[in-house]
């Protein structure tokens, strides 16, 4: 069984931070999620929630019930018992995406920048699977791994003040979907009619770390039809 070395800190008056050695990978992610699960099954006193990330795990406490040293040794012994989670509970989630300039203002620019036709760009973006590494930034935002190197494209010089919910973008070496309307600097190459966030559901996001995402191209007509059904 693979484990990873780590450093652990009393990080504030309400949190303990674990940082794991090793580069970002699915193996590391499986181990971080295993540690998270072990802590959650047998939480230390005052535990409120935890936030797994690429190579770290933040454990958040109620500061009025936080005894740092006790919590620290509790967590250290939890880590000793932790095992990497299996990928058995991982789902593959298909997200329909309309790659059409009418909903994707930067599609032509990005194709140009990458030296591809629009169709080649669509193929390259939609013919691979993306692993969900973590959630953050915006409610329901999925940090995805492994964007095809040919599609790397810098952010816009002038961020937009409003990007519509469902917009699919590329920002540097990352790709992702804006779950809610927000300002943003990513290049927009598509839009999904599917809601990425449903606050009435538990969990509220459509995917969890280790799930796989596939973008499935749809036409503008299909987009409009599905968009109406969602609304």
């Amino acid at each position, binding site marked *: 069984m693979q484990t990873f070395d780590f450093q652990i800190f009393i*990080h504030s008056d309400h949190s303990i931070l674990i940082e794991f050695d090793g580069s970002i990978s699915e193996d590391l992610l499986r181990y971080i999620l295993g540690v998270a699960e072990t802590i959650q099954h047998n939480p230390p006193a005052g535990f409120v929630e935890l936030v797994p990330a690429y*190579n770290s795990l933040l454990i958040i406490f109620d500061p009025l019930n936080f005894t740092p040293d006790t919590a620290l040794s509790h967590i250290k012994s939890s880590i000793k018992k932790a095992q990497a989670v299996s990928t058995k509970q991982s789902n593959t989630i298909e997200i329909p995406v309309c790659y059409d300039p009418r909903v994707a203002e930067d599609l032509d620019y990005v194709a140009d920048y990458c030296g591809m036709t629009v169709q080649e760009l669509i193929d390259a973006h939609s013919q691979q699977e993306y692993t969900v590494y*973590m959630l953050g930034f915006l409610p329901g935002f999925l940090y995805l791994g492994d964007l095809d190197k040919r599609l790397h494209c810098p952010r816009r010089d002038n961020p937009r003040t409003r990007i519509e919910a469902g917009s699919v973008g590329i920002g540097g070496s990352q790709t992702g979907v804006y779950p809610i309307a927000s300002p943003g600097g990513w290049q927009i190459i598509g839009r999904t009619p599917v809601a990425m966030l449903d606050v009435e559901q538990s969990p509220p996001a459509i995917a969890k770390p280790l799930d796989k995402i596939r973008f499935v191209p749809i036409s503008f007509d299909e987009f409009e039809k599905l968009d109406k059904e969602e609304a």
Partner: protein
Amino acid sequence: MSIRFLKAGLQTSLQDLGRHGFRRYGIPNNGALDPVSLQIANWLVNKPLNSACLEITQAGPVVEFTEDVAIAVTGAHFELSIDDIPVDMHQTLLVNKGERLTFGKLVNGARAYLSFSAEADLPKIMNSYSTNLMANFDGFEGRAFNNNDTLTLKNHFMPEVKETPKELQLQFGDNYQIRFIQGREWSCFSQDIQQQFLQTSYQVTSQSNRMGMRLKGCALKTEKTLSMTTAPITPGTIQIPPDGQPIITLADGQTTGGYPRIGQVITADLPILGQLKANDSISFQEIDVKGALNFLSQKYNLINRLFNY
């Protein structure tokens, strides 16, 4: 019964003590920026301390109640009047059906809390009534109140009249020393920059909001950009973006960040941040975790004495 907003004010929204357990989905806590004042307001009308209040920001509303009701206003000091007759904060106020409560001049602080002797007739989302202004959910239609909105209330009751003890009738200044714990990337900054951070009096800028407080002062420029993997942050995390001007994450702020974390404001001092406005100034004073927890328990000992009256 209901509350009618004749004027909504600059940013009036429903907030309680926030939602917990959803940061791993990117969902922040939300909730009152000054949770101490919110709890005192609820105590004054004899409600559970976590009840939803109106959080009122800098320019207050004019509201009318459609039934007799008891209310209390705490937090930022506003000149208040009921049908043009001045009334005091920090006590239970009885408002008759049809009377108007007007928030006048802001004397000090930035955010007041209005509690009322009824419950908002709204569903909880993720165990909270707090408005998420960014993703537009919960509270009143997921947004701040507008002129002419009506908030419907239920389970109306009439409590006994109380007054906040003098030592908890908080007044706010415009210049604070905020205590912080060294952040994970503290040691990535040179000693010179650490000293600059400790010696600068920072100004709160008008770009500050419920997501974050943006400061202006001595820019903490590093020779080369510190490259960081995106990592979790919490309310109170002080990050240094490339322009060198600190940003403090607040209750509506992002759950993860990519800038170096120079420090973490102690929990005991977070409510003060909610009472600062543009052009107020703060400086930072370092303490350790043990000291931070001591200050917090002192603060809550005082409040708990009140709540156990």
